[in-house]
C-alpha cells in the first residue's frame, strides 16, 4: 500500500510540474497551449536518448549522467517552444494554439518513426536511473525525494517570479495588453519568455517521468495527456500555483481510481471503450467548467 | 413644423459601462431635415451616432422611431425598421463588388423589390453603374463614400445617419457628397450627420447640435449657429462648456 502511495505521489508531483508550466502559460500570461504532451515528450525523449547506454541499434549512445540529461531536456523543450513561439508571436492568439497542436502531433510522429533515435513504436527501454543501486524500495524513496524537492523549488521559484516586477507585468498584460504596450513594455518579448519558461517546466516533467519509469515510448505520451493537464489546471483554478498542484493530485487521483475500477470490473475486450469513458469525463470537466464555473479557467479575478 | 421622426432621449453610451462617453444626450430629427452634430475631437459624436445605430453599447436612454420604441432593437433590426447608417471608416465591403455591396445592403428584400432598388441606386449614382463589377478595394475615397451611402439607401430608410461623410475627401468630392445628402433629405428622409467641418456642415443643415465632453452643450437652427461666437468658444473650450468637459483625448 505504502509503495503504491509513494508511486502515486511521485507521479502526481511530476505531473504537477507540467501543470505549473501550463499555469504560467495560460493562467499568468493567457496563452493557449494545445500540444502540452509534445513538450512533455520532448523532455522525456531527450533524457532517454542522451542517457541510454551504448546499444547497437541506437543512433545516440552517449550514456550521459542523469543530471546532465535532465539539463539537456530543458534546453530541447525551450528550443521547441522558441520555434513555435517566434513563429506566432505577432499573430492572432489562436495561431499559437494551432502551432502547439502541431508540435504535439509532430513529436508523436517523430517518436514513432525515427527508430534509430527514439526506438520507434517500441521506444527506449532500460533508461539508466539514479539511485538504482539502492534496490527497488531505495530507488522509490530516493526518486520521490528528488521529485518533491524539484517540485518545491519550482513552486518557490514561480511564486517569487509572480511577485517580482516581471510577474506583475505578466498579469497586467493578461488584463489589458494595450495598456502595457502603451506603457512601453515589450509585450511580445514578455509573452514569449513566459511561454518558453512554461514549456521548459513541461520538458522537465517529461524528463523526470522518463527517469522514473525507465522507459519512453509513444504510448507513454498520448494526446490525452494534454487534456489531463488542462483539467488539472482548471480544477485547481488557473492562475494559482497552489491550485495547479492541488488540481493535479485531485485529477490524477480520480483518473487512476477510475482506471483501477475499470480494470477490475470490465473484461479486457471492453477496456478501450471504458477508457473512452474516462476521456469523456475529462472532456466534460473542461467544457462544463468553462460554461458553469469560468473562474476555474479564468482565475477568480476575471470570472466573466 | 414636422413631427420628429427620430427621437433620442437621455442616451448614455460608451464602450465600458464604467466609463461612458456620451452622457444624457437628447436629440430629434424630423423628416426632410438635416441635423448636423458638431463638436471638438473626442466629444463623443461618433459614439453617439453609433449607439443610435446599434454598433456601440447604449447603457440607458430611449430611442423612438416615429411612435415606435426601438430602444431594445439590435443593429440589424434597426436597419430593417428604417434606420440607415453610414459609418465613418470601413463603410464598404472591400472584398465584394459594387453590385454585391448594394445587394448586401438589400439583404432583407425580396427579389423584385431588390431589383427596383438596384435600378434606383444606378439612377442616383450613375458612376457606380459603370463600375458595378469592380471590387470595393479598387475604388477611390470619393467612390467609396458614394457606395457607402448608396448601400444605406437600398433599404429605403426613413432615417439616414452619417458619421463624418466628408472625412478624407477632396473639397470637390465633399461638395458632391453634401449635395447628395441634401437631395436625400429633400426627398423626405430625416438625416442625422456628424461632421467635423463646421462651416460645410452648417451650410447644408437645417439644425445643429453641439456636443462637448459627451453632453449636448448647445443646439439651434443652423442659420443661427452659423454666426454664433459661442460655437467657437465651445470648440476652444473656453466658456459655457459643461462642467466635466474632459473632451480632449
Amino acid at each position, binding site marked *: 500500500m505504502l509503495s503504491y502511495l509513494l508511486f502515486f505521489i511521485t507521479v502526481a508531483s511530476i505531473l504537477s510540474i507540467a501543470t505549473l508550466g501550463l499555469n504560467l502559460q495560460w493562467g499568468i500570461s*493567457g496563452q*493557449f497551449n*494545445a500540444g502540452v504532451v509534445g513538450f512533455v515528450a520532448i523532455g522525456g525523449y531527450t533524457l532517454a536518448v542522451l542517457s541510454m547506454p551504448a546499444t547497437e541499434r541506437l543512433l545516440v549512445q552517449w550514456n550521459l549522467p542523469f543530471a546532465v540529461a535532465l539539463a539537456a531536456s530543458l534546453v530541447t523543450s525551450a528550443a521547441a517552444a522558441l*520555434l513555435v513561439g517566434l*513563429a506566432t508571436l505577432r*499573430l492572432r*492568439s*489562436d*495561431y499559437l*494554439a*494551432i*502551432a502547439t*497542436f*502541431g*508540435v504535439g*502531433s509532430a513529436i508523436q*510522429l*517523430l517518436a*514513432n*518513426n525515427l527508430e534509430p533515435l527514439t526506438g520507434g513504436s517500441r521506444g527506449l527501454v532500460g533508461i539508466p536511473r539514479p539511485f538504482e543501486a539502492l534496490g527497488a524500495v531505495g530507488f522509490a524513496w530516493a526518486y520521490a525525494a528528488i521529485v518533491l524537492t524539484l517540485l518545491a523549488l519550482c513552486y518557490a521559484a514561480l511564486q517569487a517570479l509572480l511577485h517580482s516586477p516581471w510577474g506583475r507585468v505578466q498579469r497586467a498584460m493578461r488584463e489589458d495588453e494595450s495598456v502595457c504596450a502603451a506603457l512601453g513594455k515589450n509585450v511580445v518579448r514578455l509573452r514569449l519568455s513566459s511561454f518558453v519558461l512554461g514549456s521548459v517546466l513541461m520538458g522537465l516533467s517529461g524528463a523526470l517521468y522518463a527517469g522514473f519509469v525507465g522507459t519512453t515510448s509513444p504510448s507513454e505520451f498520448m*494526446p490525452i495527456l494534454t*487534456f489531463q493537464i488542462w483539467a488539472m489546471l482548471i480544477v485547481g483554478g488557473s492562475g494559482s500555483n497552489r491550485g495547479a498542484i492541488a488540481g493535479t493530485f485531485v485529477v490524477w487521483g480520480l483518473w487512476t481510481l477510475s482506471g483501477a475500477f475499470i480494470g477490475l470490473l470490465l473484461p479486457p475486450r471492453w477496456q*478501450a*471503450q471504458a*477508457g*473512452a469513458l474516462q*476521456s*469523456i469525463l475529462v*472532456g*466534460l470537466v*473542461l*467544457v462544463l467548467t*468553462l*460554461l458553469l464555473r*469560468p473562474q476555474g479557467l*479564468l482565475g477568480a479575478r476575471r470570472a*466573466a | 413644423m414636422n413631427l420628429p421622426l427620430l427621437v433620442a432621449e437621455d442616451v448614455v453610451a460608451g464602450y465600458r459601462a464604467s466609463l461612458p462617453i456620451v452622457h444624457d444626450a437628447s436629440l430629434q430629427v424630423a423628416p426632410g431635415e438635416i441635423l448636423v452634430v458638431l463638436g471638438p475631437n473626442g466629444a463623443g459624436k461618433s459614439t453617439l451616432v453609433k449607439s443610435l*445605430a*446599434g*454598433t456601440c453599447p447604449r447603457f440607458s436612454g430611449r430611442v423612438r422611431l416615429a411612435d415606435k420604441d426601438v430602444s431594445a432593437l439590435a*443593429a*440589424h433590426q434597426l*436597419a430593417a425598421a428604417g434606420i440607415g*447608417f453610414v*459609418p465613418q471608416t*470601413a*463603410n*464598404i*465591403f*472591400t*472584398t*465584394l463588388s459594387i453590385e*454585391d455591396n448594394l*445587394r*448586401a*445592403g*438589400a*439583404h432583407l428584400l425580396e427579389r423584385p423589390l431588390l431589383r427596383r432598388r438596384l435600378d434606383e441606386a444606378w439612377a442616383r449614382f450613375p458612376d457606380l453603374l459603370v463600375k458595378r463589377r469592380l471590387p470595393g478595394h479598387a475604388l477611390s475615397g470619393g467612390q467609396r463614400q458614394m457606395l457607402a451611402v448608396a448601400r*444605406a439607401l437600398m*433599404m429605403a430608410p426613413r432615417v439616414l445617419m452619417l458619421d463624418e461623410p466628408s472625412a478624407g475627401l477632396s473639397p470637390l468630392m465633399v461638395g458632391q457628397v453634401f449635395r447628395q445628402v441634401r437631395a436625400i433629405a429633400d426627398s423626405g428622409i430625416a438625416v442625422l450627420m456628424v461632421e467635423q467641418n463646421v462651416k460645410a456642415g452648417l451650410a447644408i443643415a437645417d439644425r445643429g447640435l453641439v456636443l462637448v465632453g459627451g453632453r449636448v452643450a448647445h443646439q439651434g437652427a443652423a442659420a443661427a449657429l452659423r454666426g454664433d461666437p459661442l460655437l467657437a468658444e465651445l470648440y476652444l473650450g473656453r466658456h459655457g462648456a459643461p462642467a466635466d468637459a474632459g473632451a480632449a483625448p
Partner: protein
Amino acid sequence: MIAQAIVDGLLSGAIAALGAIGVTFSLSILRFANFSHGDLLGVGAYGALGVVLLTAVSSAAKTLDAPLGPFSFGWLLLIGLIVGIVVAVAIALLLERWVYRPLRQRAADPLTLVFASFGLALLLRSLILLLFGPDPHQYSTEIQMALRLPGPVLVMPDQILVFVVTLGVLAGLWLFLQRSRHGIAMRCVAENPSLASVAGIDTAATVRMTWIVSAALAALAGVLYGVTVQVRPEMGIGLLLPLFTAAILGGVGSVPGAVLAAFLISLAENLLSLVMPGSYKPLVPFVLLLVVLYVRPQGLFPIAGQK
C-alpha cells in the same frame, strides 16, 4: 511514379479541400480556431457507418448495400451519407446554441471559444470510441477493379467519383457564396460583422448558416475519406493539422485559397514521399505550417478584415 503521386495527391487533396473550407469559415466568420472541426468529419463518417452496419440486422439494408456499378458501395451508403450530414449539422447547431453562443455573449477572451472546441473535440471523439470501439472500419469489403490510366497510373473508380463529387460540390458552393443572399451575407460577416449588421444582416443567423455549411462539408469529407481510406476514431484529430495548415496557407477567409492550399499540401505530401520514407508524410503539414507562419502568415490570398 510521379504521375501516380500526383494523382494520389489530387484525390486526397479533394477531400482535404472540403474539410479546409469549414476551417477557413470558422477562422474568418466565427473568428476562432475550431479544434473540433476534425471530429465533425468523424461524426459524418461514423453516422454513415451506423447506417451501413444495419446490414447486420436488416435484410432490406443488405439489399440496399449491393454495390452500384463499378463502385464499392450501394444506395445504403448514400442514405448513410445523408444521415451523417444531418447528424453533423445537428451537433454543430446544438453546440453553437448551448456552448459557443453563451460563451461568445459573455467572454472577453477569444481563446475561450478555442478552449471550448478543444474540450468538445475530446468529447466527440470519445463518444465515437465508446459507441463504435477502437478498431478501424470499412464501409464495404467489395474488391474494386482498379482502372489503369496513362502514366501508368492506377486509380479506383471510388476515387474518381470522390474527385468528381468534390468538384461538383465546390462549384455549387462557389455559386452559393457569389449569388445567394446567405452566401453574400457570409462573405460580409467574414469581412466586417459590424457593417454587416448595419446593412441589415442578422449575424446570429449567418453564424448558424456557417455552421450548417461547414458541418455538411465536413461530414461529406469524412464519408468520402471513409470510402477511399478507412473509418477510425482518431481520423478527425489526424486530419485536423493539415486542414488548419490549408486554411492558413490559403489565406484565412478565402475559399479558393483553402482549396488550392489543400491540393498543394496533398501534392507535396505525396511527391515528397517519393524521396523520403512514407511514414514522414504527416510531418509535411506541420513543416509547411511553420514555413507559412514565418514567411507569409497572411497566406496566399489574404482577405480584408482578417488579422
